[in-house]
């Protein structure tokens, strides 16, 4: 019986968010809060592993009280339990402080039911760093397996996990000891339309909610803004690409022009070795 914890985050929907033109930062009020799309795949993979090997799937997140909504979304996907750590003292955390706080919560969860596997999404769509997962693994002193594209085998008796990792130009298969941490690619699975009983469970579900005081051995200095050495010195928009040609004329003419350009530059669309 495996105990798998998926670490998730509630993020503003960056597909619709507006940027503040003066500070170049995201105006978070302009977009609804959603479950980080990569994390949905992490939860789905945890649920699939539970179907394969049996056990429990828990989800853990740090955030303001409305993050309960993101946990409920995970229950819809099929998670069994959810934990939210929320406290003003967590606010303003960078990836270092976030992984510290999540690790403390994981320790507490593990006391009740030892954790065999932690799964994170590849990264959050608002920060794009992908650092929290490996940060947790480092603090727990367990192997981090990033870019996981397929879980080949988990064997709790033998204490091993075999996965396929996605590389820039191919794949590699690696074996790790358990417990360990995966951060998963979007391609690892497809999150299906949730069945109705899960929706019903999620609608009624109340997650565990912990504050700093509910956690043990916490060094307050390592939390929130105080525990965050990251300094954002400047944010700027990338320069707009210059050059290029605008196609003119009616639709038919534009298509013809486009075709002739594509044919002229066909070598751009060929893979290595083709001629």
């Amino acid at each position, binding site marked *: 019986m495996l105990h798998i914890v998926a670490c998730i985050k509630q993020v503003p929907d960056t597909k619709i968010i507006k940027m503040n033109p003066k500070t170049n930062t995201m105006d978070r009020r302009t977009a609804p809060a959603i479950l980080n799309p990569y994390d949905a795949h992490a939860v789905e993979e945890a649920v699939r592993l539970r179907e394969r090997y049996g056990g429990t799937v828990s989800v853990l997140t740090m955030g303001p009280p409305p993050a309960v909504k993101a946990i409920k979304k995970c229950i819809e996907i099929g998670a069994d339990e959810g934990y939210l750590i929320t406290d003003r003292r967590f606010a303003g955390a960078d990836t270092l402080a976030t992984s510290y706080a999540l690790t403390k919560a994981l320790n507490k969860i593990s006391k009740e039911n030892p954790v065999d596997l932690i799964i994170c999404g590849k990264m959050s769509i608002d920060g794009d760093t992908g650092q929290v997962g490996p940060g947790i693994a480092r603090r727990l002193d367990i192997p981090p397996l990033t870019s996981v594209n397929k879980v080949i085998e988990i064997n709790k008796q033998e204490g091993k996990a075999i996965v396929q990792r996605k590389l820039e130009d191919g794949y590699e298969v690696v074996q790790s000891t358990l417990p360990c941490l995966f951060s998963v690619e979007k391609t690892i699975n497809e999150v299906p*339309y*949730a*069945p*109705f*009983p899960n*929706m019903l469970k999620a609608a009624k579900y109340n997650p565990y909610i912990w504050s700093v005081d509910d956690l043990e051995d916490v060094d307050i200095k390592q939390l929130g803004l105080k525990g965050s050495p990251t300094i954002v010195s400047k944010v700027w928009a990338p320069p707009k690409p210059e050059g290029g040609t605008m196609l003119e004329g009616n639709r038919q003419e534009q298509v013809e022009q486009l075709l002739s350009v594509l044919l002229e530059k066909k070598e751009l669309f060929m893979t290595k070795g083709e001629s």
Partner: protein
Amino acid sequence: MSEKFDAIVVGAGPAGTSCAHDLAKGGAHVLLLERGEYPGSKNVMGGVLYRKMMEDIIPEFYKEAPLERPIVEQRFMMMDKESAVTFSYKGMEWGKEPYNNFTVLRAKFDQWFADKAVQQGAILINETVVLECIVENGKVVGVRTDRPNGDVYADVVVLADGVNSLLAQSLGFHKEYRPDEVALATMEILKLDKKVIEDRFNLEDNQGCTIELFGDATKGILGTGFLYTNKDTLSIGVGTLLSGLIKHKIKPYELLEYVKAHPMIRTLIQGSEPQEYLAHLIPEGGYHSMGRIVGDGVIVIGDASQLVNAIHREGSNLAMTSGRLAAETILLAKEAGDFSEKALDHYRVRLLEGFVGQDMKKYKDSTHHFDRNPHYFDQYIPMLNKAASQMFTVDGQSKWEKQKKIWKDLGTPKEKMKMARDMYRAWKVVK
């Protein structure tokens, strides 16, 4: 089999949420199903919320609900191409508790309202479409959703699935609506600085104004336009009978663009930025178009039962009242353990004897009358404008002379008779 509910309410708009709220408050085990991402995400209305009917459900809701502005002025503009005759009422008694009406943005308000139902104990599930009612031995016993393992059962199903109500239609309660039974409304939410809104519409902080537009706003097609003030946005839109758009071969967005560019309107919205674009059908067939609203184990409420008073642009209040009465009925049925059509008929009786039924009956012929007689909008309103222009233009002619000319311009004695008859008939259909 999954758990059974006392009631399943399909659709979390004003009708469905009112019903679910009161059912849960009365101790019933109720499931509220919404197809949108959240309640309000697919709901559209011009934006007037009526205080009284909302207070029948949540007393003093205005102390915490996300409202835009209490309405202190209602203006009516009879528009011609380059002019308008306007009348209005503004009263400070509407600017203080308990207020009269409010402008609201549905995406915000409906979410808040549904939360209230959840706090009472209703179970809300979003992003779930109900495909059909499950019928056993002629009795509705539950609904089939589009999700895997998606059948859910209840003693009674409340259909609050909006204007087209495919569910009521599939039960044979009503036919597919004709284009002259529904209006199509298109609207935009325009962002504008709060101070600018208050200066432009002569308002103080926390005061709002509604303007209803008749005549040229819809290019003479039967319908109305509207311009409402929110906190820092304006809602502007036009709604016309679908049949009118078809007949005049006008696309709905063309009509909206036309109103926005109209000389009487463009100065009011100048400098604003479109934030949202919405469109929705409105049931305007009135009393004659109402289908069956009660069956064995099923009740139909709100837009799904055509409850709209088009003449007074009221709908959400009728919806809320129908939801409340449906809840009252179901709680009584639950006590008696009888969910037959006969027991649930209490809802129909209560609805028709109250203001909803009375108003539906009072205006039962109005839309149809104005639809058959387009000259009210495309002739009489321009005439009114012309008369006002002549009367108020100071050009050395005596007022006697002017009145004589206006009278002459109304046409031949025969035409005048027709007009008098039309005025009488218009009075009759709304009296």
